[in-house]
């Protein structure tokens, strides 16, 4: 006749365990993509135009593939492999599960993203032949990749369907070239690319703020939709 009041682990502890679980299941591929990203930082210091451009291709690809792995192996697979009921049988609600997943996905993506951003700044400032004027352009492009990742993650978490995730991800990635051209087409950005110092113009600040707001909006919107779901499997 004991009325055991079950005390469950704290939210923080649960999120930590969920993140550790996801990390332990995905660490090798993620580390591999990070390594490629670091290699690309070396490539972009080259004075050889071909190597320089390849470096950027590798950099952007590393970011995209890292994000794709998180979305597919980490989010969609829980549904496809039917491990979701196992995780949801742990002492938490579905919203807490979503938050935990987001924390891991966004968290690990940001680690890579910040490493590469820091790397770009470092490399640009330490190499005389590299023009700091390109920095706003790089930063906005990287910001776009962040938004694209968060969008794909949100669609994957809400729709729990790899079809939708692939469609959204493909559209974002295919549009990268167009987006990059459009960004370069903005006078204060394109015009400053050849200069030795970065021009953080209002347009740049505006775009970056917009990207940040989009990310926050997407995450909050996703959590809201997740909390309205009546079925999680």
């Amino acid at each position, binding site marked *: 006749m*004991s009325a055991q009041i079950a005390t469950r682990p704290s939210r923080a502890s649960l999120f930590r*365990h969920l993140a550790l679980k996801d990390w332990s299941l995905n660490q090798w591929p993620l580390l591999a993509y990070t390594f490629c990203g670091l290699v690309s930082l070396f490539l972009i210091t080259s004075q050889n135009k071909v190597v320089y451009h390849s470096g950027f291709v590798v950099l952007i690809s590393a970011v995209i593939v890292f994000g794709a792995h998180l979305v597919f192996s980490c989010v969609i697979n829980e549904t496809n492999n039917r491990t979701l009921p196992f995780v949801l049988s742990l002492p938490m609600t579905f919203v807490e599960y979503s938050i935990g997943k987001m924390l891991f996905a966004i968290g690990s993506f940001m680690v890579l993203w910040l490493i590469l951003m820091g790397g770009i700044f470092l490399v640009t400032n330490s190499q005389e032949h590299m023009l700091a004027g390109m920095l706003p352009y790089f930063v906005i492009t990287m910001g776009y990749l962040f938004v694209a990742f968060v969008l794909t993650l949100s669609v994957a978490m809400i729709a729990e369907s790899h079809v939708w995730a692939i469609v959204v991800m493909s559209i974002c990635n295919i549009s990268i070239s167009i987006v990059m051209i459009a960004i370069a087409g903005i006078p204060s950005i394109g015009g400053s690319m050849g200069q030795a110092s970065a021009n953080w113009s209002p347009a740049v600040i505006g775009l970056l703020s917009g990207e940040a707001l989009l990310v926050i909006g997407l995450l909050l919107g996703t959590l809201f939709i997740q909390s309205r779901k009546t079925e999680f499997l």
Partner: protein
Amino acid sequence: MSNQLAISMDGVSKQYSHFRLDDVSIQLEEGGIMGFIGPNGAGKSTTMRVIMGLVLADSGEINVLGHAIPDDQARAKMSIGFASEDMNLYPTATLQWHMDFVRSIFPSWDQQYADALVKRFDLHHDLKIKGFSHGQKVKAQLLLVLARRPRLLLLDEPTTGLDPVARREVLDELMEVLADEERTILFSSHNTKDVEQLSDSITFIDRGCVIESQDKESYLERWRRIRFEVPEGSRTPTLPGVDSVQKAGRLVSMTTGNFEPDMPAILQDQGAVIHGVENMTLEEIFVAEVMSSRQGEAA
């Protein structure tokens, strides 16, 4: 046995596009074991998911071990062990990885018991789950819930697809659970023999509705097959409350779910010669219930 309810479902309904869980009410006392039976697609899995908070009902109240579901589901799940045949473990991880993971979250994990179960179930610590056979995967899931010693076990088809030895191992372990009077089991199964043998109470569901929910002995006692013979050319005797009648020439076999001791005498008064009045196995009752409920709909 404590009279507290481990599970209390009252008027639970859930609408899907092609299926409806309709006004489901179930009560399971602590310390008891309930067998949940019904045809495929009847709503057994859905009901268990509602109890776990994995599906939100449109209406009705659910209370598990004193916790309201879904509002207090996180705390309830500390005391519930759930395993289902449509649930998988992570294929690229080992059994040991899963054991470490569950242990890190549940302080009630009993490592000694877990190790004993690994041996008893003939499993391997260091093999990746994708290398397990179906039976081993089922047993691995059960190990992970059993080793936590939860107060309530919710098991969706725990013996389906297991070879006879594995089935024996699992059922033996489940019965050991009941040695603790405060632990409760709800399991769904196609294996009516297991349900008939192990259950204290039986809930029968078909097409989203609970047809019966009663203690097992009373339920089995309500059903009889009466075999009798009628003289050539005379009309077949009738009885109220009869479920089905099968005839082969002069021999008649009648099943009823509302047996009264005076029924054989009533038939005899109508000219029948009784050959036998027999109890029915749960499997026979299952078929009779489903057939008659389907015929009732067709009528």
